[in-house]
């Protein structure tokens, strides 16, 4: 009987211009189950969910909820059909309270104060029943990310969601918080709620889902029961070929210290965002900086790259000393032999409206190589770009194409190519594979490892523990602007790192950061 399916999709099709985002998708989700949807970035998962939630309208196809066909033309319809969505980027008003955010849209009357009383009672009931405690009067921007996510879930439950869709929910959580989230999801499932989990993290699919559907390049390619599959099989389905999960690391001794940070303090508006940090990175090693995003890693990268200043301490980049009073700028830092692959290529690493050749000289546009007197040497720039695009297999290798037209993976290649080709001695890399498909991830990881094998000092900041663990020689964990511990890569596992990321020190970890013992 079809009414055992909470949601059934038939032939859902959606195009954006030439991009065929969803190709005749069929999907059946059983009631009271946790159903995972995996796929690479750009496979079409988010588009599909946006259609279910009414953000977009499908070009063709049917949606059935509990056996009944529904038309979803907007979020109102989705909510009425019992669908609730927890978005990857939270849909919260940051300077409102928890209560106000939950109420938004279902205030219960034009006069707010009356509505608030009833809403508060209902919210407190939900919090108790589902174990999602959070202070209704707390202001969102003051809450940690894990709690903000709870508010998102509460929002959906408040509106009577029977089908809960979570889009990449664990990107901002520590492993422990992720465990807790999964407990909640399982509890919801046991109470009859249907949960759809969209993720690209295969480990999580294996941990919590009952069934999995795999999307690839806009189409559904497989539906399996989780017990019948494993990470490798899923990865293969996602990409269409066998995928390697580890990278070759040549064992060797690290060389001289190329990047040294001593007692770094960064204060903004009276708040210490980075608190007395000290570490060093040597030539030929990768130092991985792990931590949930928002604990100072991004700021650290920006300070090292010369984008932001710092309050006290000393930074030594490739032999050059930087003090708080030194005027620093990304140009100066680059000239010291530092390359920087920023965490957010869209916001920082690239300019969408520039074409590839203009993107390739970003940060280096003042150098004599690219300028002849007053004018830029356009011919040389194009030629240079063309060569690099070919070497790095950037597709399409057209220097005049606007960067916005390249895929995520190719864009990241452009950024990495740009920095690597300058042959820096120190390499600052942030979230290198965010939003990049598995095939390109392999390529990028190999290149980062190449840098290390060629004797560069690499500082790698990433929220993906797999990435940190597979690439780093040593790992430090940041929490609230401090380094809470340092490990050799061999000694690190997810559990240990996860605890450290939440500032819980496992007994067997060295919590004092040693000054370099090698002479």
């Amino acid at each position, binding site marked *: 009987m079809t009414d055992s399916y909470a949601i059934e999709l038939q032939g859902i099709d959606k195009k954006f211009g030439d991009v065929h985002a969803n190709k005749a998708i069929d999907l059946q989700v059983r009631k009271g189950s946790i159903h995972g949807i995996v796929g690479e970035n750009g496979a079409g998962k988010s588009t599909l969910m946006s259609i279910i939630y009414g953000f977009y309208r499908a070009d063709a196809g049917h949606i059935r909820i509990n056996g009944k066909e529904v038309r979803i033309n907007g979020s109102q319809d*989705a909510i009425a059909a019992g669908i609730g969505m927890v978005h990857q980027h939270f849909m919260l008003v940051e300077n*409102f309270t928890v209560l106000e955010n939950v109420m938004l849209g279902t205030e219960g009357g034009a006069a707010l104060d009356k509505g608030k009383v009833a809403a508060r009672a209902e919210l407190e009931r939900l919090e108790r029943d589902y174990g999602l405690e959070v202070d209704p009067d707390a202001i969102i921007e003051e809450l940690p990310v894990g709690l903000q996510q709870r508010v998102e879930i509460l929002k959906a439950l408040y509106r009577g969601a029977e089908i809960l869709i979570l889009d990449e929910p664990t990107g901002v959580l520590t492993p422990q918080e992720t465990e807790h989230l999964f407990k909640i999801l399982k509890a919801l499932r046991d109470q009859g709620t249907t949960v759809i989990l969209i993720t690209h993290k295969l480990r999580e699919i294996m941990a919590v889902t009952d069934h999995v559907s795999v999307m690839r390049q806009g189409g559904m390619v497989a539906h399996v029961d989780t017990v019948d599959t494993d990470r490798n099989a899923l990865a293969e389905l996602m990409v269409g070929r066998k995928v390697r999960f580890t990278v070759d690391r040549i064992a060797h001794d690290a060389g001289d210290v190329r990047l040294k940070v001593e007692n770094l303090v960064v204060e903004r508006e009276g708040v210490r965002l980075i608190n007395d940090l000290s570490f060093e990175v040597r030539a030929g090693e990768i130092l991985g900086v792990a931590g949930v995003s928002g604990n100072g890693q991004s700021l650290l990268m920006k300070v090292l790259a010369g984008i932001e200043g710092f309050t006290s301490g000393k930074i030594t980049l490739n032999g050059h000393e930087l003090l708080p009073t030194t005027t620093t700028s990304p140009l100066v830092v680059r000239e010291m032999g530092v390359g920087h692959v920023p965490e957010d290529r869209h916001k920082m690493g690239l300019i969408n409206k520039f074409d590839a050749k203009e993107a390739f000289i970003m940060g280096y546009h003042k150098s004599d190589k690219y300028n002849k007197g007053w004018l830029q040497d356009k011919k040389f720039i194009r030629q240079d770009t063309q060569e690099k695009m070919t070497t790095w297999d950037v597709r399409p290798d057209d220097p005049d194409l606007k960067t916005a037209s390249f895929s995520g993976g190719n864009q990241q290649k452009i950024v990495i190519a740009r920095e690597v080709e300058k042959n820096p001695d120190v390499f600052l890399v942030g979230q290198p594979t965010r939003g990049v498909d598995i095939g390109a991830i392999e390529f990028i990881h190999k290149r980062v490892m190449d840098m290390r094998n060629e004797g560069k000092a690499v500082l790698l900041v990433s929220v993906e523990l797999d990435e940190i663990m597979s690439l780093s020689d040593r790992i430090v964990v940041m929490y609230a602007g401090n380094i809470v511990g340092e490990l050799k890569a061999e000694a690190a596992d997810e559990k240990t790192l996860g605890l450290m990321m939440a500032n819980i020190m496992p007994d067997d970890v060295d919590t004092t950061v040693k000054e370099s013992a090698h002479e």
Partner: protein
Amino acid sequence: MLDFWFSWVILPLDSMMRLSTPLVLLALAGMFSERSGVVNIALEGKLLAAAFASASAAAVTGSAWIGLLAAIATTIMVAMLHGFATITHKGDQIVSGMAINILVAGITVILGRLWFNQGGQTPNLRGDARFQGIDFPGAAWIQENVPFVGSVYGEILSGHSVMLYLAYLMVPISWYVLFHTRFGLRLRAVGENPAAVDTAGISVVAMRYKALVVCGILAGFAGTYLAIGGNTAQFMPNMSAGKGYIALAALIFGKWRPVQAMMGCFLFGLLEAYAIRLQGVEIMGIGTVPVQFIEMVPYVLTVVLLAGFIGRANPPKSVGVPYSKERE
């Protein structure tokens, strides 16, 4: 002593009340619009349009209240045009605002000349075509018999036109609407995070249009006051003289909150009152201040406010950005 008090404290404060009124209304108008995410550079144009409409309608019908209605209807239309360009068609909000200001400046003069043949002005109004003053009870007696403070009641508070009292009433009303109604909650949400509102099932577009309507109504009041509500009794070309922009500065100074914005407007009004008071007066060591420098005062103050006190005030997060559903 009494003379000094009266001449240098009471009268300027009295003037301040009147000079600030259009600014307060405009600042409130701007507040609703900007809190919903629409930058309102077009306040100047709305002001001018309202002034023209109210003066013309009052001249033709002989009733000031009809003038007010005409002004509100006009500014709502202008607001709809503004919304059409920026919300529906996602045009640049500042460019469309400037376009409206220029359009209105031109059309008001053309229509003015066409209809009234007075070089762009509307006819001088008399009687019911103007708003009458309201005297508070016992004002005259209190002013005469209570020293110093009496004239606060008698001169500053009492005796203004109906429109002025209506205008200041808008401040607490706006506060209530913005912070204690469902409409206000949703409006502020749209200004901070339109995506959050969209996913909650509320139409961002509808909310912004509604905000523009409220903005239009308040601007309609402002223009009516400017032309026929206070001491003036007609429309003159370009009589807005930058008040739309000055109100924006006051709004920013007041951090987009009703009472603080009103304070900002008072600051302008007070300074302008003193500047006028100083016209022709000899100051020790300087002589008379040239009239051109007195004219400059509000504009210089605007720049000072924008540069000095505020530092960087935080506007509503989504201000200036047209809303479109992001693709991945």
